[in-house]
């Protein structure tokens, strides 16, 4: 068995890398703040709500808005599976590029995209830090050590692996925007139901999306009322009792709300199935686009496997 090649780095180099990483984190923080400020500025511009979303989809829009939702979901989900099957950083980076192009084509506001990317950046950074230290060493893998910190051995293959995983995660996360943000939620869930997802599940998601806001607001108001009477979370029995009371009351209120919502549905003739608002009609163009998109995924996979 051959001895692994050992590369010794001077101590200042990892310091520089850490500095760069810290700079990256600051940049992410600034991006988040900028995104928030941009949202605040644009909030003044009132959106035209007179056109229901289910009509928006039929209006001339971008490529993803025009694409039949069922085919779009099936295609992009299939493509996402191809992307996560990649093994090498080059094709994975190409997948990120393709997702970025898709985001541009879908005309998604950059604030949302940046927020999503910033959201997963913490996990990816952790992978990049941990994997070079923990990845299993293969025969022939070089080993990097830092002068003065010889007890820490880094495997560059771990970094490559972390980069590949990071690129794949970023590519799929970015793809979520054109996949889910270019149709109304009801439309997307209806399309998922047509693709075989149980209807009860899609209905639950639809109702949950609506009432999450209501429950969050109720919970927020209750917490505010508790703080207004001096409640502070501590690690004592009193806090435990108060939090239990709070959760119990939240549950009771949520249960009551659920019953009232069901009553409201029954009062308008609900018989167990939500009305279907969306009529899907796939055109040849939709299928062509699906084939083209999946072909890109297959080419990426071939390039990944055979280096063509």
């Amino acid at each position: 068995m051959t001895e692994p090649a050992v590369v010794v780095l001077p101590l200042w180099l990892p310091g520089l890398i850490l500095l760069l990483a810290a700079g990256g984190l600051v940049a992410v923080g600034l991006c988040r703040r900028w995104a928030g400020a941009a949202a605040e500025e644009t909030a003044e511009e009132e959106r035209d709500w007179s056109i229901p979303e289910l009509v928006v989809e039929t209006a001339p829009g971008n490529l993803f808005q025009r694409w039949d939702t069922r085919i779009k979901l099936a295609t992009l989900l299939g493509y996402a599976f191809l992307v996560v099957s990649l093994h090498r950083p080059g094709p994975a980076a190409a997948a990120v590029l393709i997702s970025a192009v898709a985001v541009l084509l879908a005309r998604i506001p950059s604030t949302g995209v940046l927020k999503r990317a910033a959201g997963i950046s913490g996990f990816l950074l952790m992978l990049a830090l941990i994997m070079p230290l923990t990845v299993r060493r293969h025969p022939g893998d070089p080993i990097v050590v830092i002068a003065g910190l010889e007890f820490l051995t880094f495997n560059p293959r771990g970094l490559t692996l972390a980069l590949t995983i990071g690129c794949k995660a970023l590519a799929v996360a970015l793809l979520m925007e054109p996949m889910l943000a270019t149709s109304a939620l009801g439309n997307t869930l209806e399309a998922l139901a047509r693709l075989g997802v149980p209807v009860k599940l899609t209905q639950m998601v639809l109702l949950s999306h609506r009432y999450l806001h209501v429950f969050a607001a109720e919970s927020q108001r209750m917490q505010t009322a508790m703080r207004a009477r001096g409640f502070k979370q501590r690690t004592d029995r009193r806090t435990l009792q108060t939090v239990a009371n709070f959760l119990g009351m939240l549950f009771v209120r949520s249960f009551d709300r659920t019953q009232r919502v069901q009553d409201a549905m029954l009062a308008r003739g609900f018989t167990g199935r939500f009305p279907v608002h969306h009529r899907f009609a796939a055109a040849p163009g939709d299928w062509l686009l699906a084939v083209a998109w999946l072909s890109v995924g297959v080419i990426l996979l071939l390039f990944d496997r055979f280096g063509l």
Partner: protein
Amino acid sequence: MHDIDQALLPKHLANPLLQAEQLSYSYGNGQQALDRIELSIAAGDRLALVGQNGAGKTTLARLLIGLLRPRSGRVLYAGVELAGDQLRRARLEIGLLFQDPDDQLFCNSLYEDVAFGLFNRGLAPELVADRVRRALTTVGLEHLAGKPPHHLSTGQKKRAALATQLAMEPLVLILDEPTANLDPHQEQLLLEQLQRFSGTLIAISHDLPFLCELCDRAVVLEEGRIHHDYSLRELVSHPPSMRRHGLDFTFRFSCCGGHPEAPRQVPPTAAAAVQAEGAEAAPSQPLTGTVPLFQLRDLHYTYPDGTRALRGIDLTIEAGDSIALVGENGAGKSTLLACLGGIRLGRGDCRFHGNRIERKHGGELWRHLGVVFQDSADQLFCASCREEVAFGPEQMGLSKSEVARRVEQALCQVRLGGYEERVPLYLSGGERKRLALASVLGMEPEVLILDEPTAGLDPRSQELLLAILQRLPTTKILVSHDMFFIGAVTSRTLVMHQGKIIKNYLTSQFLSDKALSSLNQIHYTYKNRCCTEILGLDQGAYFQHAPDR
């Protein structure tokens, strides 16, 4: 006039559209909600269902539409018992407007909500689209068809919920507390829309002036039974009867010689007295040598979604002031209260006793302030009334004996002595509101902040709450749409519009301002007009029967 202890027998109509026969209902815990109800409602009737909190009004409405199964008796719709196909038909032809519009708007856009019932009825999509447009236009929300309901204001939600019913073109429309939490402008809009409705109308409300504009028949429920079934005019022109059923809102006239539009005589506070000398509408001036209680300079607040709730608020509040904040729904009143209470931290200078409020939740500010929230349910989370009132004093680190003393005192102050072991969840609406007040009075706050204290309360509970608040010597800051309450409790009124204070004057000046509606398009005097009309129904009846006050 009838003997108030003698129940007037229910009317029996020849061809009722909706009929309850010996209808009884009990809750899961065995509590009797309705007892042998006999009620006949003809097509075209406009009926007010009134009674105290807990009288069984909402339960009766749910039984009439078949959402609850009666324990005994039956409900007939168009002469056929509610069951099977007739139940389905009734649900499509009888509309029920829920008290909380969030219960009724469960879809992800306003359009889908309004279309929901129409699709359930099996209508063609083109017809559905047409009806949705018409219903939304009727309530003035056609420009918001694609908006998710959780982005609508309270008034808009209420009108949207009405649109979900109007689109169904119901033969019967049942309204459960339709005016709760609406500003006078929104209330008037709702009233106009309901007045245009030509079908049978059943309205549950404590708001008698509103009901008088809408209904001609009154059914009075008391402890689950129908006590009176006669004309609404008869009811409102007979104060002893209203008093007996906790519906007497005429206490609202007692302060101003029976003329609701006359300025009320409110004892001026020190600050208000200073203002009164300094002519009209000046902001509160600090008393010489004293630091103001609150001092706000150029305060701004923007919500995370970008909504600018406060825009450059300048305000000084002196100790002992009683201040009302008025304005349309969404004007920024509650946000301003939250900033004063340290719950939200705005941009600008906000000081309490000269110290800048810099930390979110105000650091130790909670020890000085008592905040009574609009919905008591937000404030009550303990298993007993004693625990609820004791919570704040315990957080203050007081001794057990002092906590016990404060609990007893606070419960007595709000007339809930003896309720110590009762479960807050099972109290009536009025009792819950008073318990919420007790839970902050136990902390003996310097400032009492009240957000819509009268919302959803029956007149008797309102009168009781008013009596309690008038006796409290603390500084009071009140958000309300209730002009009478403002007149009776506060000495200074701030009118807010789009996040700004556009007018700051003495409450007496505010109430006699003839140009109120031009301030921010809110018809503050609309309610007074309704009251005047009621008074005109039976001139002198109120004064003949008025109790010694």
